[in-house]
């Protein structure tokens, strides 16, 4: 008789002294309630508590894997993340479960929305989406914040695109970018990207080691006249603010960092807020509704705790930081803030075009930080980043990437083998293909984070049929590429493939478009602006129609730019919170510990 199989009986200790709560557990009255412990919510919490002396309650939907995050000992305890592909990228350790919280997708109003297991979901966990990201933290260009004007000046139009200027300029945001880089710990080399806008100071840390795949692709890029540069990233390359240097373990994009080298919001801004004694974080706490008085004021929030019990919390000010999709959904579920009719509208991802190259040599993408280099030559702006370049469509930064995952590589081999079987390729067996490890060891990708224009019809609203486990309507995503994205794919696709040829690849092709898009850059839906008729939030990210409600995540973005958005989310959240703390001189909060 085989089996019974042995079972693990070992248990991990409970994550905190009071289950489900971190920080000062005795606090009962709060100046501010923040919904979401990701990049934006944590940055705002840090300013409010450390500099502003306010008391803050953070409600986080997901679990906490940073045991002892509120322990003031100088060496932070290591979290429960690990170099475990199955746990993180297959079984969804930090993800919402599509069985419990499904989403639906459609390309237009003309077709019914269908359930899909993954419509641009971001991790729900303490630390938010950045926990699982590889922390690529570039800034936007100066021209991004006045994009509508810049396009008009050059006579460039994209049919249907609702571009607008931001109510904040790059120069106003620059000190907050500097602060965001300081708090997160960003490595990079000032002056190495000719398209970057001016910066007032050097990066906090120099670049770490290059990945081999980045060196290979950079040589191809240089042969084509491009300007590869070390990608700015929030991974320590030195001992920095109590955290160790990254050791390039290879499990970066898609994985939490096991040794806190990543400047994840949890171990940077959030931890600093928790250590003030003025912050309380309740995790596994799913907010279901914002309560309001019907007069433009939020009075409290309802949430469900980890035991499934309905709970209530209140404060003076409320900050939404649950991601562009979930923050907008919460407004719609609460029937709040939508006087403009624009809540959920102008949803943007990035137009990700991906060139694939297959190389003879092993590129060992499992050593490094997932992406260490890229180019801005295909961004569609002039050097210096002040103007658009009308000779090409708006595009985006190109990341030089690869695949670190053995399971992912073998899964791809299974799919490729299915195709091969139909063609009867002699001598090819599935095992031989898996052993060759083509799709893990020999593959490189050029990923363009292309500008995704805001279109009125691209949006999130409430699905009329499906419910989540809490009994509430789930997000329905309506999205399709428009005039800009089609033009950009046409223009840049061949260039993304050509780069592989120049780098010595044996084979190259353009990956088909994902539907729904697989981008994790989720933006728009609560657009900021000065006119309440054409925007949801004002220049300080407060709702035009709700006096004590703010949005401090990617939802306020007016345009998507062509760069990874997290650093900009943090900079904006720092600025909004600084204005809350010090309306007359918000910049006085900067640089303070």
């Amino acid at each position, binding site marked *: 008789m*085989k*089996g*019974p*199989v042995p079972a*693990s*009986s*070992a*248990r991990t200790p409970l994550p905190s002294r009071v289950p489900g709560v971190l920080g000062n557990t005795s606090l009962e009255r709060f100046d501010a309630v923040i919904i979401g412990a990701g990049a934006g919510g944590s940055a705002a919490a840090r300013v409010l508590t450390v500099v502003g002396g306010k008391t803050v309650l953070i409600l986080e939907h997901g679990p906490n894997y940073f045991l002892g995050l509120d322990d003031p000992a100088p060496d932070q305890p290591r979290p*429960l993340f*690990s*170099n*475990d592909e*199955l746990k993180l990228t*297959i*079984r969804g*350790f930090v*993800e919402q*479960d599509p*069985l419990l919280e499904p989403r639906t997708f459609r390309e237009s109003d003309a077709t*019914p929305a269908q*359930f899909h297991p993954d419509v641009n979901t971001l991790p729900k966990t303490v630390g938010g989406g950045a926990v*699982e990201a590889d922390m690529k933290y570039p800034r936007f260009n100066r021209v991004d914040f006045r994009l509508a004007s810049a396009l008009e000046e050059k006579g460039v139009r994209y049919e249907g695109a609702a571009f607008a200027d931001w109510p904040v300029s790059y120069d106003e945001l620059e000190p907050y970018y500097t602060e965001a880089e300081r708090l997160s710990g960003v490595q990079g080399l000032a002056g190495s990207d000719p398209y970057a806008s001016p910066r007032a100071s050097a990066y906090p840390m120099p670049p*770490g080691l*290059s*990945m*081999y795949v980045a*060196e290979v692709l950079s040589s191809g890029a240089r042969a084509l006249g491009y300007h590869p540069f070390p990608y700015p990233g929030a991974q320590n390359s*030195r001992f920095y603010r109590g955290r160790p*240097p990254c050791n390039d373990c290879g499990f970066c994009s*898609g994985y939490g960092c096991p040794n806190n080298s990543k400047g994840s919001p949890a171990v940077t801004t959030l931890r600093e807020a928790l250590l003030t004694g003025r912050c309380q974080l309740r995790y*596994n706490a799913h907010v279901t509704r914002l309560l309001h008085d019907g007069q433009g004021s939020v009075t409290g929030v309802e949430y469900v705790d980890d*035991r499934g019990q309905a709970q209530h919390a209140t404060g003076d000010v409320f900050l939404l930081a649950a991601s562009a999709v979930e923050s907008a959904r919460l407004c719609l579920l609460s029937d709040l803030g939508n006087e403009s009719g624009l809540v959920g509208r102008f949803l943007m991802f990035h137009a990700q075009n*991906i060139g694939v190259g297959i190389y*003879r*040599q092993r590129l*060992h993408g499992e050593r*490094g930080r*997932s992406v260490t280099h890229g180019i801005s030559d295909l961004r569609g702006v002039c050097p210096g980043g002040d103007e658009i370049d009308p000779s090409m469509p708006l595009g985006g930064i190109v*990341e030089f990437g690869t695949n670190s995952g*053995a*399971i992912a590589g*073998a*899964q791809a081999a*299974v799919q*490729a083998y*299915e195709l091969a079987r139909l063609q009867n*390729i*002699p001598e*090819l*067996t599935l095992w031989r293909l*898996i052993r060759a*490890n*083509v799709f893990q*060891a020999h593959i490189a990708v050029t*990923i363009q984070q292309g500008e995704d224009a805001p279109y009125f019809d691209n949006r999130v609203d409430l699905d009329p049929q*499906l*419910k989540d486990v809490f009994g509430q309507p789930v997000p329905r995503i309506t999205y399709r590429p428009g005039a800009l994205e089609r033009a950009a794919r046409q223009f840049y696709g061949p260039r993304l493939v050509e780069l592989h040829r120049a780098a010595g690849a044996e084979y190259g*092709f*353009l990956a088909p478009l994902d539907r729904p898009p697989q981008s*994790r850059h989720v933006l728009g839906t609560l657009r900021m602006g000065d006119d309440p008729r054409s925007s949801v939030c004002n220049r300080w990210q407060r709702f035009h129609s709700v006096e004590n409600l703010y949005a401090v995540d990617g939802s306020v973005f007016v345009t998507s730019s062509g760069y990874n958005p997290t650093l900009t989310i943090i900079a904006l959240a720092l600025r909004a919170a600084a204005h809350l703390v010090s309306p007359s001189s918000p910049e006085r909060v900067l640089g303070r510990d």
Partner: protein
Amino acid sequence: MPAVPRKAAEKARGISRRQVLRWGILGGSLALIPLSVPGCGDDGEAVVPERGRELAAFLGDDELATLRAVIETVLPIDGNTTRLYDGIERYIQRLLSDVPSMDHPGAIFAGGPFSNRNPFPDVEHGKASDVFPRNDFEHFVPLTRLQLLGWRARLLGSETVDEFDFNASVLGPVVGLRNQYRSGLQALDELGHATFARSFSSLGADERQVVIQRANPDFVALVIGHAIEALFSVPEYGGNPGGLGWQFIGYDGDSQPLGYAIFDRSSNSYRERSDKPTSTADPNETFSPFPAEIANLLRLLTRLAGSPRFP
């Protein structure tokens, strides 16, 4: 009237979201064929392990024999690979048997941060130390209430889980993996009897191929998918004994806490590992061409991908 046809919805619910590759690193480039897994019957059986007691193995001896025969048929591995097959079998049996409950983590999420396979770095001297961490991977992480709901439905079927009827009228029930395996293996045996008057595991290799060709392709895909997970996941889940799967593809597996870039505090800079460099090709890299059958496949993939492309 459901917006989604029932069968399509059932299939979609079974897809692990992560089978669609994520994070743009490979994006759609590798999602050439959508993987799907089946929705079959549901007998509603729920076996919950009690804490401190050994778990009952879900698949019985006959089922295991059939499963082994299926794996050997759909994934013929060259050479002496008994240990690899044992690992795949152990991985699937454990997934189906070790069901998480309120006071038992099951075998869903191995712990962290480190296994004991790599040493700590010696950052004072920029080299590997001889100190190894304890193996945290062996201590599985307890599930939250929501994770428990989802995983019990995924393993046992949604009809056995309270609070799980909220979309059943639109999407239908979630068919548990246990029932997918039980009914899938039983169907193969019945097909073996119908075709060759013998159980699947007692058939010869060619006969097994005939039966597999007629079997439910969703079940075959499910088994292959789990076999891949078993071969290349960290060994603590039961497959990949001693990292043998990784060795076959020249992959290191988990690298923490040493990693590949070793910081040297004395020079305040990084040192690369000479045996496994980060920024250059491996010292023994040959740049040799792909074997003919692999090259043929890559030409086919390139052609199917459409333009722009090369060669």
